[in-house]
């Protein structure tokens, strides 16, 4: 048997009322792989992400994590399964400081019960967590912002903080929803480097409109159109695929 996929979605169908948002879609992400999902607006990319993160329960389909079938996760269980998701836009707790944002992201790491949480016990775990927060902030080069309120951050920095909060729970798979959206050239270059560095031991699932990012960092790409998987392959294969080119004509001139 080959190495089981980190995550496999099999024949996922999602209906919203009478509308079929996803139709019999299967994808898999292997360990250490960067997988991209592209498609025109309304193709079902975000719905697929929502299925994977427990926000939408599909009409039918199966989920395998590490080769084992399991039920669709509840949203709060996600980080415990080694999955961590960033949202479109910013998606931070605007009231909380950068460090506090990261600490909320680490909820799955602190296993203590209500009363221990209330009393703030677990000194050793607390110290370990603090140093982990400091490490992630350093890794993303945002240490200087540690004590700032999330609401006061420049946009590119808040995108990095969102990444940092996703990383703090020690995910094995990172789900990035349009991480390059709204970023300038320099920050996009930084992001590409970051994704490639992260996948040395983990996997990444990426929804993105920036073809430059997708084509540069992805090992494989799935293409959705009107809720259906119309193509799947390496960036080079996708670029040449006539069906993909047709789907994209008019919206994105070249791939």
């Amino acid at each position, binding site marked *: 048997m080959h190495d089981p996929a980190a995550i496999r979605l099999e024949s996922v169908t999602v209906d919203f009322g009478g509308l079929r948002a996803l139709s019999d879609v299967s994808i898999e992400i292997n360990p250490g792989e960067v997988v991209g999902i592209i498609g025109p607006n309304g193709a079902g990319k975000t719905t697929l992400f929502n299925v994977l*993160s427990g*926000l939408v329960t599909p009409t039918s389909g199966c989920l395998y994590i590490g080769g084992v079938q399991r039920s669709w996760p509840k*949203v*709060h*269980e*996600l*980080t*415990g399964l080694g999955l961590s*998701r960033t*949202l479109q836009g910013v*998606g*931070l*707790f*605007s*009231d*909380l400081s950068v460090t*506090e944002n990261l*600490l*909320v*992201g*680490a*909820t*799955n790491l*602190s296993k*203590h019960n*209500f009363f221990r*949480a*209330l*009393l*703030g016990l677990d000194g050793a775990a607390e110290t370990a967590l603090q140093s982990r927060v400091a490490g992630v902030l350093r890794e993303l080069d945002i240490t200087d912002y540690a004590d700032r309120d999330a*609401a006061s951050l420049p946009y590119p920095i808040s995108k990095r903080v969102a990444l940092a*909060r996703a990383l703090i*729970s020690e995910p094995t798979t990172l789900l990035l929803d349009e991480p390059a959206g709204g970023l300038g050239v320099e920050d996009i270059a930084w992001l590409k480097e970051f994704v490639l560095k992260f996948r040395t031991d983990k996997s990444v699932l990426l929804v993105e409109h920036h073809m430059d990012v997708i084509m540069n960092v992805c090992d494989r790409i799935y293409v959705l159109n009107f809720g259906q998987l119309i193509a799947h392959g390496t960036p080079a294969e996708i670029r040449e695929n006539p069906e993909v080119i047709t789907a994209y004509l008019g919206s994105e001139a070249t791939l």
Partner: protein
Amino acid sequence: MFIDTLLIGISSGAIYSLMALALVLVWRSTRVVNFAQSGQAVLSTYIGYEISVSTHNYWISLPLAILVGAILGSLVDLLFMRLLMGRANSGPIAEIAPVIATLGLLGLIQSFVGLIWGNAFLHYASPLSGKGFSFGTHTIPFSPQNLFIVVASAVVLAIFGAIFKYTDLGLALRASSFQPEIAQLAGVRVSRVRNIGWAFAGSAGAVAGAVITPTSTLSPNSLDLLFVSGFIAAVIGGLDSLVGAVIGGLVLGVGFAFILQYIGGSVTFLVGFIILMAVLLARPRGIFGHKVNRRA
């Protein structure tokens, strides 16, 4: 005279702060103004009263009343609000139904209390004297029970402040209150955290009821005016700010005391409502309310 009035104002302001805090805690966790709060507080106070009657000990009844308040708060969320909000979850009804429901629940609880204990004025006694401290020949209206009210309120407020600021639970409460979806994605069990918010609110209201009632009498509606003051205080403070609730309560308590002293009791609530309207007109989000729209 000035100091006397100030002390009395702080004592009643402390109670308003507790009630305001209870409202703020529920508002932050569920976005509902919980009009049933005074009913919950009165029920926990009746239970405290029963315990003090059977044990002859106020100091045993007080923590138990607080515990009952917390359990009641949690149950109201679990058995009532959660079901309701699950069913009325879209359209204009989703905004208004929970608030109306808390009003209904208030009536329900007060009728239940009336059914069990009747409408007589009961005396929930505390061992602390209700007579003012004396300095030589001068007796001030501020009594040992008033002092206890101030101390107990300060302790409760400090405990909640510390929980919010320094504990994981407090962080989860703050994270869940404005961006529940993101909190869930970050691994927070938002519904559980919400329930703890309701329990905390219930316990804050229970403290208010159990420490203020020995200064007057207990009846099914005895905490209603207190609730109104707490509500005004919470709105002045911004409804989502803990600090605002405390300051709003103290400002209102001291303000009322001075009005009562220098103008007369008939206008205190009139002034309260004028303050409420003025704050709402000038600064609808309250003095300490948050600027940005939190519904991310």
